[in-house]
């Protein structure tokens, strides 16, 4: 069992992990940059150690400093959270070389999954379906020979390339030759290398990920899927489990493939295998994230498995504690960002003068901030995750709507209202969530649907608040000099 764990992260995920440590009877050690002194996660930690230096490279990405703190403070393990150093195989290796436990998969597994081509080859060898496609060494002849086995529509991509150069979509065989010539010409001009790659073009596909968990005792299980298609600026904002597009049969098949993927790299701990799922129910391996994910709570809510606690258990050499897969109800997570959704989702800063989260049944808040905190431009603008669970998807959407309506954040612009409107949007209600959804629905950018009466009401309240100096007296009002204590232990009668 682990005794003292350093959490090499900040914000809400550090809070999440440190709380799990406390519940597991493990001492939690936080590290923090100077500008994170007093942040919520340092308060939840048993010990909080300041990092020297400025900027990410000198602080949260500073492998040497972090490892030294762990050793100097008697830690036996390091949890990297997500982002930062979580997928750095070299750091995992250093941690292990220092005799500490790395709460995550082996450096080899991280490396294999971190390189796209190695991952593809490893998965193919393990029998996990990958997007049909081949690298072409022998020029045009070979492209023409390979194409039928890949299938149409297909995509020609420059092997050396990027940024769309040398990329051509081919919908019918008769266009293959001319398009292939064009692609190779473009590739040669752009990259000095005319090799191309032929891949099936998967249109209208969904991005679906499977959570896996593997311990040291040979048990590798999956915990169902998450659908995370609603994205803005390539970042997820709305995630759910289960997916409306997945039935029990497909879930089993994808789950088995995900477990095969994990086994192929001797995976240990929690990980996520991403798949592309076509409208016809074919699925293909995309990549594996070798860490806990931002959206892990939706899986926790529907499966009843505490993923972070299992990570700690597995790293400590215990068998995982969860029983057979038991998916119940529906969970949705929305990410609360400090950003202005009406202004192309640009990040916002400010002070959280009021921060009043919703409460009640089925509502979970994983927050990195609390009232009074300053939101600075120093870090990612994600402030918190609001997660709801309900027996059915429609009830979960209704509950999320209720919770978002109750959520008060003043002093810093957030995407709360955008998320609220999303919950009522017919495409979301019907489950037609796609990665391009936000651009499709709001091609000219999202603007709040603000009824005139609400705008007028806000104006009235602002002027009344200004006229009455609202909020100014809160502090002094209760600082009265009348002692209350003589009365505080008196008995009372009830009618």
């Amino acid at each position, binding site marked *: 069992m682990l005794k003292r764990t350093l959490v090499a992260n900040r914000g809400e995920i550090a809070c999440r992990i440190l709380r799990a440590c406390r519940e597991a009877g493990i001492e939690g050690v936080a590290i923090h940059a*100077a*500008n994170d002194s007093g942040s919520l996660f340092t308060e939840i930690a048993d010990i909080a150690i300041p990092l020297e230096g400025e900027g990410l490279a000198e602080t949260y990405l500073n492998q040497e400093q972090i490892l030294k703190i762990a050793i100097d403070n008697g830690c036996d393990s390091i949890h990297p959270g997500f982002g930062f150093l979580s997928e750095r195989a070299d750091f995992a290796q250093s941690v292990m070389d220092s005799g500490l436990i790395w709460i995550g998969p082996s450096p080899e597994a991280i490396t294999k999954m971190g390189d796209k081509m190695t991952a593809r080859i490893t998965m193919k060898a393990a029998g996990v379906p990958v997007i049909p496609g081949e690298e072409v060494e022998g020029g045009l002849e070979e492209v023409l020979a390979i194409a039928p086995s890949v299938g149409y529509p297909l995509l020609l991509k420059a092997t050396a390339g990027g940024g769309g150069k040398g990329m051509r979509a081919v919908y019918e065989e008769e266009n293959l030759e001319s398009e292939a010539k064009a692609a190779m010409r473009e590739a040669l001009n752009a990259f000095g290398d005319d090799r191309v790659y032929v891949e099936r073009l998967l249109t209208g596909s969904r991005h679906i990920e499977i959570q896996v968990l593997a311990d040291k005792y040979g048990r590798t299980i999956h915990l169902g899927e998450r659908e995370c298609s609603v994205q803005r600026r390539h970042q997820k904002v709305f995630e759910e489990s289960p997916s409306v597009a997945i039935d029990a049969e497909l879930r089993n098949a994808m789950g088995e493939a995900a477990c095969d993927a994990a086994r192929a790299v001797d995976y240990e701990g929690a990980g996520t295998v991403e798949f592309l799922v076509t409208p016809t129910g074919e699925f293909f391996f995309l990549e594996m994230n070798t860490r806990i994910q931002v959206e892990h709570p939706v899986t926790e809510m529907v499966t009843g498995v505490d993923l972070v606690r299992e990570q700690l258990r597995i790293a400590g050499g215990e068998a995982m504690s969860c029983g057979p897969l038991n998916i119940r109800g529906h969970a949705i997570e929305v990410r609360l960002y400090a950003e202005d959704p*009406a202004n192309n989702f640009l990040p916002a*800063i*400010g*002070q959280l*003068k*009021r921060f*009043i989260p919703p409460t009640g049944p089925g509502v979970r808040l994983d927050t990195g901030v609390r009232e009074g905190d*300053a939101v*600075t*431009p*120093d870090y990612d603008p994600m402030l918190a995750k609001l997660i709801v669970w309900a027996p059915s998807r429609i009830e979960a959407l209704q509950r999320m709507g209720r919770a*978002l*309506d109750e959520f*008060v*954040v*003043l*002093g810093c*612009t*957030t995407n*709360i*209202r955008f998320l*609220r409107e999303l919950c009522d949007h017919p495409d979301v209600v019907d489950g037609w969530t796609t990665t391009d959804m936000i651009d499709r629905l709001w091609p000219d950018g999202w603007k*709040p649907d*603000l009824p005139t*009466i*609400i*705008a*007028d*009401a*806000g*104006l*009235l*309240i*602002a*002027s*009344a*608040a*200004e*006229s*009455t*100096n*609202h*909020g100014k007296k*809160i502090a002094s*009002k209760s600082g009265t000099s009348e002692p209350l204590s003589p009365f505080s232990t008196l008995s009372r009668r009830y009618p």
Partner: protein
Amino acid sequence: MKFKTSDGRKDIEPQREGLVFIHEGLIAQMGDEIWLEIDGRKHKATAAKVGDTWWVHVLGHTLQYEIVEAGAAGADDDSGLTAPMPGKILDVLVSVGQSVKAGDALMVMEAMKMEHKIVAGHDGIVDAIHYNSGDQVIQGAELLSIHE
């Protein structure tokens, strides 16, 4: 009272009876809490002032109103000068006891990868300086104060 909002300038002169403000059928009851009445239904609202801007949460909407012309309560007579955003002090241009004129630059701070000058809002004498160059400051931190 005049406000600036994201869709232009707005004027409002509500009818006031004590802590009750009325405007075109809308009623705001002020107190420790704010209650808004629309069509006979009451809704809780929350408001907080940041700088010259009132933030208001009502019926699931969060709105901002920047004061252009203040109301009865008047503007703050706060003589302190505060950091408009989190950042780092680059330079302190004055010293305690020094006379300054409205518009004089007092400090330079870096925030959002840009430099910003902190300038005197009125003539006066520098009372106190709370930060030195190199210090990190949070948003709203009082940087220095001027006595008229």
